[in-house]
């Protein structure tokens, strides 16, 4: 246990925070959520993290001794299984993000240029899937992609193939499922950012001699970069840390990072391993998010100094 001590005499930030809390300068309404966050997220996370750096002894279900150790981390980092698994997860998440962008952008663009009904239909089609759980949507893919599923029976009936294709329980099934399930998360921020801009900008570009394609390239696309950044960050995080879709569509021999954490915690009950894996998962995820943020920032320098 660490004791937090406030520097004597001077008003340290800790003291000022306590002061601010007690005087209630607008912080009070946020206190319940801060408490919930601390209890539900920060403290458990700290505990989990501590497990990754210690050897544990349990008795009657409780941890009785915890000694500092780096072995779990070094073992994981030198284990090729971890490298392969995290590479696969990263690869899957990045491809999912890429395809979500490729499929989502035209939809968002259609929303921008479409009429009232186009907009409504796009919104309904985008939001409706979010109202059902991801598990249900994943099961739908089981039905579609399975050996007797819609895809295979159609291909068989038109004699394109004579044996059902094995799509289920492959990397492709996981990718297809992930892209479909995370597509709305890409489309919504794109729509939000793209429709925030004045339609006159497009007219101005056309008036200045830009073709539709040039307008898309020089005006609509650069202005939608913040949306792309947000969407990509969301889709990446969700795909990188998902374990429902890979479990259901990837089959029993498809392993991604989140599934690995789940199994280490629940089945192997090896929490030090689970903790280290989730730490690696989180750190790598943060690294990618920082990269996405840096790229986005670089492409949106114009948003800075907006209030200047």
């Amino acid at each position, binding site marked *: 246990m660490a004791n937090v001590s406030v520097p004597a005499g001077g008003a340290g930030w800790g003291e000022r925070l306590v002061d601010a809390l007690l005087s209630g300068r607008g912080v009070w309404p946020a*206190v319940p959520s801060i408490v919930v966050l601390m209890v539900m997220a920060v403290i458990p996370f700290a505990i989990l993290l501590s497990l990754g750096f210690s050897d544990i002894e349990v008795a009657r*279900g409780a941890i009785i001794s915890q000694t500092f150790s780096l072995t779990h981390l070094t073992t994981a980092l030198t284990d090729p299984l971890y490298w392969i698994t995290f590479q696969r997860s990263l690869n899957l998440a990045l491809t999912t993000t890429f395809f979500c962008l490729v499929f989502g952008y035209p939809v968002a663009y259609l929303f921008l240029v479409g009429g009232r009904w186009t907009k409504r239909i796009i919104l309904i089609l985008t939001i409706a899937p979010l109202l059902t759980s991801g598990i249900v949507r994943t099961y739908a893919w089981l039905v579609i992609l399975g050996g007797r599923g819609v895809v295979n029976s159609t291909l068989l009936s038109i004699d394109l193939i004579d044996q059902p294709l*094995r799509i*289920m329980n492959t990397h492709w099934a996981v990718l297809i499922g992930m892209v479909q399930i995370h597509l709305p998360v890409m489309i919504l921020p794109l729509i939000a950012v793209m429709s925030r801009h004045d339609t006159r900008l497009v007219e101005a570009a056309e008036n200045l001699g830009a073709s539709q394609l040039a307008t898309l390239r020089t005006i609509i696309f650069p202005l939608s970069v913040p949306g792309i950044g947000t969407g990509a960050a969301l889709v990446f995080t969700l795909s990188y840390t998902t374990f429902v879709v890979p479990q259901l569509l990837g089959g029993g*021999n498809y392993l991604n990072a989140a599934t690995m954490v789940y199994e280490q915690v629940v089945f192997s*009950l090896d929490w030090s391993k689970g903790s280290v894996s989730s730490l690696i998962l989180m750190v790598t995820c943060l690294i990618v998010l920082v990269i996405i943020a840096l790229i986005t920032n670089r492409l949106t320098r114009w948003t800075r100094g907006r209030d200047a």
Partner: protein
Amino acid sequence: MKLTRRTVLSGVAATTAALSAPSILRAQSRELVMVGYGNASDAPLIAAGEELGRRNPGVSLRVIGGLSAEALAQIKAARGNSPYDLAVMGSPAIVNALAEDVIVPLDFSKIPNSGNVDPRFMPYGYDVGQPIWFEGIGIAYDTTKISTPPSRWEDLWSGEFNGRIGMCRPQSNLGLGVLAATCEAFGMPQNDMQFALSKWEELSPLVGRSPPLLQQMIERGEVDLAPLWHVNTALAASSGLPIGYAKIAGPGPLMLPTNIVQFVNTAEGTADLVHEFANILLTPEIQKMAGSAPIYFGTVVEGIEVSADAAPYVPSTPEELNSTTSLDWRSFAPLRGETVETFDRMFAA
């Protein structure tokens, strides 16, 4: 309403009071909380719970569905303050739970009906749990694609089933048990998981993540056959699909007893209720209910007849009954995590 320190603090206090209320109620009405199956198989547990309530007014049983492994993780997460009083648990899970030290041994003298249990089952409670019924491991197969199902474990390696067979990921008791049975069939020690995995690699199997998902793979025609619990197979066949079940020998027919176990840190007086509950489960009424459609659990109490519709799934003939065996779960259950990693090194796509 103006949000001030006072309103926030009183709100927090009120919320805390509201949240703690259920635990107060639970203490007063003495509700037993147990980990069950989360599907139709909970019926005999619920029936026994009602009987328990009749015998002890004010007592009730809540069955929460879920994996026993997840329950163990939850107890571990609660640092021993178990949210559950008891559970149904397969023998290998008991081995894992003992390693976590979350189980309080049952006092079998307080379970009179325990004396009626076929002595072959009792060891699988590992002196802490009371066996109540069993599930068999055999081969589920698509009857339209396989005319003569394998009858011994070695038959799977005839070459005929390569690429058509499914297997279960070894984090499950089923997956782990099948690997041990493979070792046994080829004369190796049951805990030589490396050997078993390389044998299975030869079959280039399609892998199901869990028994229900493997069951679905057979239902959808993605695999023609797979080792499966008899309970899952019966469930799949009951929907009218052309799915058969072969009780495999050598070793076998294989069974895995299900046991009642009691978790640490349960409140005062709970232990008596748990024992009484286990005793009720071993009464002929509950045993018959568990052994009949649609559940078809194998019964462990001597003298309970196997019904005709259960016969395809549960050992019923004298020689089947005599040769029924299990595995030395104790020797390989602790290898679960390690085996999963080895499996992933060899099989991960």
